[in-house]
Each structure stands twice: as structure tokens, then as C-alpha cells.
């Protein structure tokens, strides 16, 4: 019995175990502090669906050897372009959502190619540069949002000011177009966004299938051991570019899914910090800077979004203070820090052995 518990702890890892137990405690205490447990569970599921694909966008780059995709805002920008264009064209419903995705994907491929070429020139420093590519592209796009020739009255300022609004409502277009697909409503409080979860599952399946193709296997090889991969005839630079393009496209699709559930397109400095919850999510799921799986995505997103949803409602009701923002900062950055300082220790331990 003790052996089994030990094995389980080893397999799950301490951070997941601690956060998982913490989440469990939050769920158990919720009814005692007058937080409706069904609403909470629904909220966690909805946020899980909203963030799932954005977290999934980390996988290809980690597997391809480019590290954590701190440049996720670049993909988000491609998604925003798709979303804004579909609203401009007055497309509604599930068709509107799909066309937003269809418009976003070419932008994602284009931006991803440029981003990939850049990252190939700065091997070893990918993450630091990705961080700044993300930040600067958001600022550059902010200038563009002011000047791009979109005309729809749903998106530009009614009077005064120029350019697109900072937040654009998609209520009239494709709000909840995925969430309300085969949705399950039990009682007053429980709600399951079937369509969104199915879409996330489909994306996971596609990524999983990709990594079982010849290209996908070559990419994993290029990521885990570039020298060996090169010796066996894999074009490492090409594989890295494909992984970056994939990550960027997934980021573009992810943000549109996020928006159809959230109800708003957030432009300008909106995407600025969006890489961090995604990075923290996958790391919490047990991924490292060098290796990430779909399972890491699912577990990590659920735990991280669970904490983010439950702490404000439960903790605030207990101590009567809103500390959620501070807790979020400490937990998410603590996780990233843990991952950045951990892998090297393992490596040096190996060297010693």
C-alpha cells in the first residue's frame, strides 16, 4: 500500500499533488461558505474549455525544441484578425465562428513562419526572445488597430476617437456558438458546454495524430536530440519552423474559442499577458521546458483554471478580502519559476550519475 502511494506521488509529482489537494479542499469548503458547488463546477469546466487550446498551443514548440511559447500573443493576434474580419463581414452563428477560424489560420501560418525563422537564428535564447516578440507584436498591433480600415459600426467608436474599440462584443455574431452546441443544462446551476469541450477534444486529437505521423515523430526527435536527429537525416531547422507555425496557429484558433465563450474580442493591450496563464497551465500539468504531452495540457488546464476560479469565490468568502489577484500572481509565476529551475538540476544529477 505504502509502495503504491509512493509510486503515485512519484508519477503525479509534488506540485500537482499539492495543487490538486488544495483544489479538492476548495471544492469541499465551498458549500460551507455559501458558494454554490454546481455553479463552481460549471465555471471550472467553462474556463477549462476556454483555455484548453491556448495551453495546447504550447505543445508543438516544446516538443520541437523551441521551449515554452512565451510568444503566444503573436498567435492571438492572428486569431484577433480573423475574429474582427468575421464581425466586419457580419457572419453569425457556428458559420461565423468557423469562418473566423478559417481567416485566422493563414495569418497564423504567415506570422508563425517569420517567428520560426527568427527563433532559428537565436538558438539557446528562444524563450527570452519569444517573450519580447510577444510583447512588441502586441504593441505594434495596437498601432495597427488604430489605423486598419474596418468600417463596421459594431466595432468602431460611435463618435470621436478613431480606429477599433478596445473591446468588441460578439453577442450579435457568434457568442456561445460552440458553448450552446449540444449543451447540457441540469437544474438551475449546472451547465456543460458540450460543443466547446468537443472542439477542444478534436484539437487534442489532431495534435496527437500529428505527433504520430512521420513529420511529427521527426519533430519530437529534432526537439529531444538535435544532433542525433540531424545525423539521421532530419532537417532540424525545418522541423523547428513547423513546430512554431503549429503553435502559432493553435494560439489563433484558441483565442477565437476563448472569445466565443467570453463574449468579447479584446484588442490593443488585451493579449499582453495571455501567454503566462497558458505557460503556467502546461507546467502545472507536469510538462517541462523540453517535454510536453496532451495529458499535461488536460491535467494542467483543469488544475490551474480550477484554482483561478475557486480561490476568488471561496477564499474571499472565508477571509472577506479579495486576494485572488495576488494569489494568481504567486501561483502562476511560482510554477513557471519551478519549471525553469528544475530541469537543469535533473540534468546535472544525470551527469553526476
Amino acid at each position: 500500500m505504502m509502495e503504491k502511494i509512493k509510486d503515485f506521488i512519484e508519477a503525479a509529482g509534488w506540485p500537482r499533488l499539492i495543487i490538486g489537494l488544495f483544489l479538492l479542499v476548495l471544492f469541499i469548503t465551498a458549500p460551507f461558505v455559501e458558494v454554490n458547488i454546481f455553479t463552481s463546477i460549471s465555471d471550472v469546466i467553462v474556463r477549462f474549455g476556454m483555455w484548453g487550446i491556448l495551453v495546447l498551443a504550447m505543445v508543438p514548440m516544446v516538443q520541437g525544441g523551441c521551449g515554452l511559447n512565451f510568444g503566444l500573443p503573436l498567435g492571438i493576434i492572428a486569431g484577433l484578425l480573423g475574429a474582427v474580419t468575421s464581425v466586419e463581414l457580419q457572419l453569425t452563428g457556428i458559420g461565423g465562428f468557423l469562418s473566423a477560424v478559417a481567416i485566422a489560420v493563414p495569418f497564423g501560418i504567415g506570422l508563425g513562419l517569420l517567428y520560426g525563422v527568427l527563433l532559428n537564428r537565436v538558438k539557446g535564447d528562444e524563450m527570452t526572445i519569444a517573450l519580447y516578440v510577444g510583447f512588441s507584436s502586441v504593441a505594434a498591433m495596437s498601432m495597427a488597430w488604430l489605423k486598419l480600415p474596418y468600417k463596421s459600426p459594431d466595432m468602431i467608436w460611435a463618435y470621436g476617437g478613431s480606429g477599433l474599440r478596445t473591446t468588441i462584443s460578439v453577442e450579435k455574431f457568434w457568442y456561445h456558438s460552440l458553448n450552446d452546441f449540444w449543451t447540457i443544462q441540469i437544474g438551475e446551476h449546472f451547465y456543460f458546454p458540450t460543443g466547446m469541450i468537443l472542439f477542444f477534444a478534436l484539437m487534442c486529437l489532431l495534435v496527437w495524430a500529428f505527433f504520430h505521423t512521420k513529420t511529427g515523430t521527426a519533430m519530437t526527435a529534432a526537439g529531444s536530440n538535435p544532433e542525433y536527429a540531424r545525423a539521421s537525416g532530419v532537417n532540424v531547422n525545418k522541423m523547428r519552423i513547423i513546430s512554431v507555425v503549429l503553435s502559432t496557429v493553435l494560439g489563433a484558433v484558441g483565442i477565437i474559442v476563448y472569445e466565443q465563450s467570453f463574449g468579447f474580442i479584446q484588442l490593443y493591450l488585451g493579449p499582453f499577458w495571455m501567454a503566462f496563464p497558458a505557460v503556467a497551465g502546461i507546467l502545472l500539468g507536469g510538462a517541462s521546458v523540453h517535454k510536453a504531452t496532451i495529458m499535461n495540457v488536460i491535467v494542467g488546464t483543469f488544475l490551474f483554471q480550477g484554482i483561478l476560479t475557486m480561490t476568488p469565490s471561496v477564499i474571499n468568502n472565508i477571509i472577506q478580502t479579495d486576494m485572488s489577484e495576488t494569489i494568481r500572481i504567486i501561483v502562476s509565476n511560482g510554477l513557471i519559476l519551478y519549471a525553469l529551475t528544475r530541469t537543469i538540476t535533473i540534468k546535472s544529477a544525470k551527469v553526476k550519475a
Partner: protein
Amino acid sequence: MNNIKSQENKNKVQRFFINNAVPLLFILFAVLAIPMSDLSVEYLIAEMITRLARYSFLVLALLIPVIAGMGMNFGIVLGAMAGQIGLIFVMDWNVMGIPAFFLAIIISMPLAIFLGWMAGIALNHAKGREMVTSYILGFFINGVYQLIVLYSMGSIIPISNSQIVLPRGYGIRNAIDLVNLRKSVDRLIPLEINGIEIPVMTFILVAILCVFIIWFRKTKLGQDMRAVGQNMEVARNAGIPVERTRILAIVISTVLACIGQIIFLQNIGTMNTYNSHEQIGMFSIAALLVGGASVAKASIKNAFVGIILFHIMFVVAPRAGKTLMGEAQIGEYFRVFVSYAIIAIALALHAWRKNKEAEFARRSLRVDADAAGTSE
């Protein structure tokens, strides 16, 4: 033979442009944008003097970790936070003027040493990716800082001055008016030239720091740091305690940043308790890189040139944006864009330069071989 010489000259010119690409770009920007902004030269000079006084200490705090091969230390925000905690206590106790300045340094120094020591240990576990790690470390400690300043001060940690506590009874206000020590260092030795106020004492402190850095490089510890920066394994074999040396580099940097933040805030005169420190890392690093520094090499000259060029951009961009695009907002975003893009470009250029440098080295070997071949 002539061919080789002209080739060499061409290489030299090319090399000069590669080595100084970033500052040249900014000089070009300044030349184009200053006339467009309609700002007078006097105004710009006054502004640059203020900004040199404000930022020099912080930017210089970045130099020592670069010597030790640890890149740009985004962790200077840790020092800045320590400095701010010192200032909060000084404001609480109502100390005035220069004593307040020194008391704030004395209070925050142990905290800065502790934070620097912790950061150093963390970075020793993340060799090869110090920059990303120090950046995230800044965010993480920012959370802890909020926990202390926003929730514990006034409840667990006694704060008696109701002027700086939030109306709810605990937590520090978002903005603190530093009446006690506003410009206390700047105006200690008053001097005015053509109506431009010169903060003499601040510049004296900066000069002392410069002398310290020059002296420090020649000490045993400074030499050890350089050795560690060049090659950790070789340094270790030579008997240098690599881990300890790296931690010391970060501790010194953090302590300097702590003093730098106090100088910075006494000049500005108000402290945004939860924001003043956040941008410090990014602005200081962008300035140093604009001055022509790289991740592996940074000098005092880079710091000063960088502060001037970066802040010319900073002051001029919104006005130039307005003239050029008819909108100040564009200039605002341009400013944000440049601050981040410059770090991205400088880091990418550094990687590219490393490759080029290797190529030059190979080529020079080839030339030697050719020359040897013809003489035979």
C-alpha cells in the same frame, strides 16, 4: 594583396555597423523625430539631465552580472521593491530630508541582500537561461511584495501613519507622496545654469558608483567574475567558487538597484506603491541595450549613451506621432513597441553577431594560411 586589404577594410566597416547597429538606429530616429516633435533644444537638454540623474544608478546596477556572464539582470526589480519597502517605513516614521534617504537605504539593504542571495541561488539552478528566469522571478516576488504591502502592512506589520494606509485600515495606499524626501538629494548642492536645475549631489553619487565599478573590475572578485563569465568550467578548474561568485554578482546588483530606486523615487517625488518598480527592469535594460551593450558585454559608456538615446525616443515619440499620424495615441503605442522591440532586436542581433564573429575568426585564419602559402 591589395584585394585582401580592401576586403579587410570592408570587413572593418561592416563590423562597425554590426557592432553599433542599435545605437546608430536610435541616432537616426532622433535626427528624424526631433524636428517633427517641435520640442525646443533647451527643453530636451533639461529633460535629459533629469533623466540621467533619475536612471543612471539603476542602469549601472546592471553591469556587474553582465561581467559574470549572467546577462541582463531583470531581477533588479527585486532591489527596487526592497528600496520601496524602506521608503514606506521612512514615511511611516516621518523622518525628513537626507537622514530619511540614508535611513531608507539602511532599512532596505538587508532585505536587498537577502533577495539578491535568493535570486542568485535560483539563477544557479537555471544556468543558460538566467534572463527568462530573473524576469519571472521579478513577477513572483512582486506577488510576495503585494502580499506584504497590500495585506500585511497595517495588520501584521504595524504602520501608524494613517496618511499612507488605505482607508480600510490595512495595506498601503496606491500612491504615496514622498514629501519628506522629494529632491532632497538632488537639491543638496543647489546649482542652476541657464534656468536648468542641475542635481549635483545625485551626479556625485553616480560618479562614485562609476569609480566603484572601475575599481571593482580590478579586484580579485571582479577578475573571478570575468573568468566565470568567460567559461564556468575553466573557472571552476582554476579553483574559483563559481556558484558563490555568481550569487555575489547578483547580490551586488540587487543592492545597487535598491539604492538606485530610492534615488529614482526621491527625484520623482511620488511613489506608485504597486507600479513604480514594475517597469524599472525593462526600461533600464532597454536603455543599456540601446547604448550598444550586449548580453555579454556592457560598459559605463553604454549606460550613459543608452539613457540619453532611449529617453530622447521616450520624450519625442508621442509628439512626433501626433505630427506624423495626427494622433498622440499612436506615439504612445510606438513608445511601448520600441521599448520591447529593442530588447528583442538587441538580443537577436547578439546571437547573429556571435555567428558573424565566429565567421570573421575563421576567415582571418584562412587569410593567414593564404599568406603563408604565397610566401613559400
